[in-house]
C-alpha cells in the first residue's frame, strides 16, 4: 500500500515534468502566461545566418536597440541555425510547437528557400507570422568610372552583348539575383550572375572591374560611394532609397516587372499561444516607435513598414506569389 503510493506519486512527478518540458518552458520562472512573466523571460531569438551574417547582425542590433530603449529588460540570446539558407532555422522553429520563448527573424530568403532547395520542407505557412518590420530598398551600384549612367544604359548594353555583362551577388536565389533575372527577362536579354559568399568579395569584384554591377542594400555601398569609388544609378524597388533619393527606381526607367522586396520580419512557432503573440507584437510595435530605432533605420536606409499578425501573414502570402513568379521567370 505504502509502496504503491510512493510509486504513484513518483509517476505523477514524472508525468508532470514531462508535461512541463513538453510545453517547452525553459526554466522554472517562465511557466505563467501573463505579460509580466514574458517580460522576465530570456527569449531565444533565432536567425538563419551564422554570426556576422546579415540576419544575425540585424537581430543583434535590434535587440540592442530594444534594450537601450528599455522596450525589453532581459538580453535575448541569439541562436544561429545556419543550415540550408533558412531551411534549418525554419524546421527548428516549426519544431517548437507551442513554445512561448522562441521567435525568429526572417527575410525574403524564407520564401525562396522552400521553393528552391531540395529537402527544405517547412514553408512559411506552417509558422505563425508575428510582425513585419522593414523593407530594405535595394539599389544598383556600378564602379565610379563605369560607362553606365542608368539602369537603362546597362540593359541596353546587355542587349548589345547578351550573356557577357556580369552582375555580382550572393546565391542565385537571393533577392538581387531574382530581380536581375526578371529585369533581364523583361528586356529580352541575359547577363551573367557571379555568386560570392561574402558581401566584401562582391564589392571587391565591382571595384576591380570583374563585375559590371550589383544589386544590394544601400548601407553596403555607402562608404564606397562617399569615397567616390562606386556610384548608385538606380533603386531596384518601388520606392527610392532614403539614402540615395536621387537614384531613379526601375519603374521610373520604364521597367514594369514586379520586383521582389527584401523584407525583414518576425515569425513564431506554429502554435504559439495568443497571449505570447500579443506580447511580442506589442514589443515590436513599441520598438519601432523609439528614437533609437528611427535613427538606426535612417542611417541604414531602411524603410519601416510595421505589419502585425494577419496583415503580415497576408503580405507574406502575397509576396510568396511574387517570388514564385520571379523564380519561374529566372528559370529556377
Amino acid at each position, binding site marked *: 500500500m505504502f509502496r504503491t503510493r510512493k510509486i504513484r506519486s513518483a509517476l505523477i512527478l514524472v508525468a508532470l515534468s514531462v508535461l512541463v518540458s513538453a510545453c517547452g518552458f525553459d526554466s522554472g520562472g517562465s511557466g505563467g502566461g501573463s505579460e509580466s512573466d514574458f517580460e522576465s523571460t530570456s527569449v531565444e531569438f533565432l536567425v538563419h545566418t*551564422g*554570426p*556576422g551574417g546579415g540576419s*544575425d*547582425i540585424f537581430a*543583434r*542590433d535590434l*535587440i*540592442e536597440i530594444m*534594450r*537601450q530603449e528599455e522596450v525589453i529588460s532581459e*538580453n535575448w*540570446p*541569439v*541562436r*544561429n*541555425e*545556419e*543550415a*540550408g*539558407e533558412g*531551411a*534549418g532555422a525554419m*524546421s527548428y522553429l516549426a519544431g517548437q510547437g507551442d513554445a512561448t520563448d522562441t521567435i525568429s527573424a526572417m527575410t525574403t530568403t524564407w520564401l525562396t528557400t522552400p521553393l528552391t*532547395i*531540395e*529537402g*527544405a520542407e517547412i514553408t512559411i505557412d506552417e509558422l505563425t507570422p508575428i510582425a513585419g518590420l522593414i523593407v530594405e530598398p535595394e539599389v544598383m551600384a556600378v564602379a565610379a568610372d563605369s560607362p553606365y549612367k542608368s539602369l537603362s544604359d546597362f540593359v541596353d548594353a546587355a542587349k548589345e552583348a547578351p*550573356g*557577357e555583362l*556580369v552582375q555580382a551577388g*550572393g*546565391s*542565385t536565389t537571393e533577392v538581387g539575383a531574382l530581380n536581375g533575372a526578371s529585369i533581364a527577362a523583361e528586356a529580352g536579354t541575359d547577363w*551573367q*550572375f*557571379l*555568386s*560570392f*559568399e*561574402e*558581401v*566584401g*568579395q562582391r*564589392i*571587391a*569584384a565591382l571595384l*576591380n572591374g*570583374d563585375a559590371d554591377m550589383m544589386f544590394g542594400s544601400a*548601407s553596403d555601398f*555607402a*562608404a*564606397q560611394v*562617399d*569615397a567616390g*569609388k562606386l556610384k548608385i544609378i538606380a533603386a531596384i524597388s518601388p520606392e527610392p532609397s532614403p539614402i540615395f533619393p536621387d537614384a531613379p527606381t526601375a519603374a521610373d526607367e520604364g521597367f514594369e516587372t514586379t520586383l521582389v522586396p527584401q523584407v525583414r520580419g518576425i515569425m513564431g512557432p506554429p502554435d504559439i499561444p495568443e497571449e505570447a503573440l500579443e506580447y511580442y507584437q506589442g514589443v515590436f510595435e513599441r520598438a519601432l516607435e523609439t528614437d533609437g530605432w528611427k535613427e*538606426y533605420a535612417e*542611417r*541604414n536606409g531602411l524603410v519601416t513598414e510595421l505589419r502585425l499578425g494577419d496583415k503580415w501573414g497576408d503580405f507574406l502570402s502575397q509576396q510568396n506569389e511574387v517570388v514564385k513568379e520571379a523564380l519561374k521567370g529566372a528559370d*529556377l
Partner: protein
Amino acid sequence: MTEALQGLADGFAAAISPTNLFWAFFGVVAGTLVGVLPGLGTPATIAILPPLSVNLPPAAGLIMMAGIYYGSKYGGSTTSILLNIPGEDASVVTALDGYQMAKEGRAGQALGIAAIGSFIAGTIGLLGLTFFAPVVADLAIVFGPPEYAGLMILGLSLIILLAGTSKLKALIAGVFGFLLSTVGLDLFTGAVRFTFGRIELANGVEFVALSIGLFAIGEVMINSEEQSGHQLFRVPRKMRELFPTKQDMKQSSWAIGQGSIVGFFIGALPGAGSTVASFISYTLAKRFSKHPERFGKGAIEGVAAPEAANNSATAGAFIPLLTLGIPGSASTAIMLGALFLYGLQPGPLFFTENPDVVWPIIASMYIGNVLLVMLNLPLVPVFASILRIPYYILSPGIIVISIVGVFSINSSMFDVWLLVLFGLLGYVMRKTGFPAAPLVLAFVLGPLFEQAVRRSLVLSQGDLSIFVTRPWAVVFLVCTALLTLGPTVTGVIKHKGPPETPEPSEEKEGEQSVDAPESKTEASISGKRQGRV
C-alpha cells in the same frame, strides 16, 4: 608615412587610457580562453559581446572585440599542442608538429615558440597594417577569381609535401578530403550535393567535427592501445627545459618571418582567412626546410610557421575592414556591424574622417600583443604540466571536451555524431598509414579552389585562358610549377651548405623507415597529379 606615425602616436596616447587598457586586457583574456577551449568559435564569441559594449565609447568597444579576435589565435595553439585537440580552426596545422613535440617532452618549447612566434608575427602584421594599409588594400582588390584559383592551386599542390612514407596515400587522403568538402548546398546553383536529405549537411560537413574527430579522438584511440597507467609524455622538471632555447629560436626564425608575411597578405584577402594562411605557411616551411623529413614528427618550425601566419593574418584582416569597409571573415563582419551601430562607416575615408577611432584600435593591438605574450609565457609551464596528469585520467577528459566543444558550435547533436564517426576514421587512417593532414588541407582549400575556378569560368564564359592571362594568376601557377616540379631547392642547399641544425635525435631517426622501393612510382604519380590540376 609620417602621417601614419603621427596617427599611431595619437592612438597610443588614447589606447593607454585606463578604460581602453582595461578593455584591451579583458578582450585578450577572453580571447585566450575562447581559443583554448575547443569548439565555440571566435565569431560567436565576438557576436555575444555588443550588449557589454553598449555603453562604451566606440574605440573601447572595438578594442575589446579586436582583443578577442587576435587573442583567440594565441590561445588556439594550446590544446592543439598538448592534447591534439585543435582549439580553433586556424590551429589545426599547429597540432601536426606541436603535439609530436609534446610527445617528445617538448611541450614547453612548442607552447613557447607559439607564443613568441605569435607575438613577433602579430607585431609585424600590425606594422604592415599601420604603414601599408592603403597599398595592401589595392592589392587585395586586384585579387579576383582567377588569382584565388592560382593561390589555391599552389596550396593544394603542396599536399604532396604532407605525405608520410607514401605520397600516393597522401594524395588519396587529399582527394577524399576535397570530395568531403563538396557536401552541401552549391552556392552557384542551389543544388544539394550528397546531403542524403539531411538539412544538417546543407552547409557542409562541420570542419571542427572533422578535425577534432580525426586528430583528438583518433589519437586517444591509438593511445588507448598502450598501457596507460602513468603519464604518457615526459615533462621536464626543470623550468629552463620548458622554454625554447636559443637554438630553437634560431631554427624557427625563418619560419616566423615567412609566416608573418604570408599570413599578412593572405589575411588581407577577403574570403581566404587565417586557416588558409596557416596551412600555406606550414607547407612552405616544409618545402624550404633543410630537413623536411622532420616535419610531422615534432619540427619546431612546423609550430612556428602556422602560428606566426594565423596571427599576422588577423592584422591583415583589419585592412579590408578599415580601409574598404568590406569584411573578409565572420569576425570582421561583426566588428563592421558594431561600427555601424555606433554610427561609424569604415571605408576609404575612415582613416581621415575618424582617426580618433581607428588609431586607438590599431595602437591597442600593439599593446594587446605585448599583454598576450606576457600572459602566455608564464602560463607555459602551467599548461605543460597538464601532461603530468596520468593519461587514463586525461583521455576521458579529451573525449568529453571534444563532445561538448563540437556541440557548442552549432548546438547540433548531428555534429557530435559526425565527431564520433570521424574519430573512428582517424583511428583507421592512422592504422593503415593514410595521413590526416592532406585530408584536412584539401577540405579547407578545396571549396575555395572550386568556387574560384567556377567563378573565373563564369567571367570568361568558359574560356580557360583566363587563368594564364592575368598576371597574378600566372605568378601563382609559375610558383606552383617551381615548387612541385623543379629540382628540390633544398636538396641543392643541403649539398652545398653546412648542416646548421643538429641532426634529429637517434630515437627519431629510428622512426623514419622510408620504404625505398616505392619512391620511383611516387615520383611518376606526383607528375600525373600536376597534369590533372
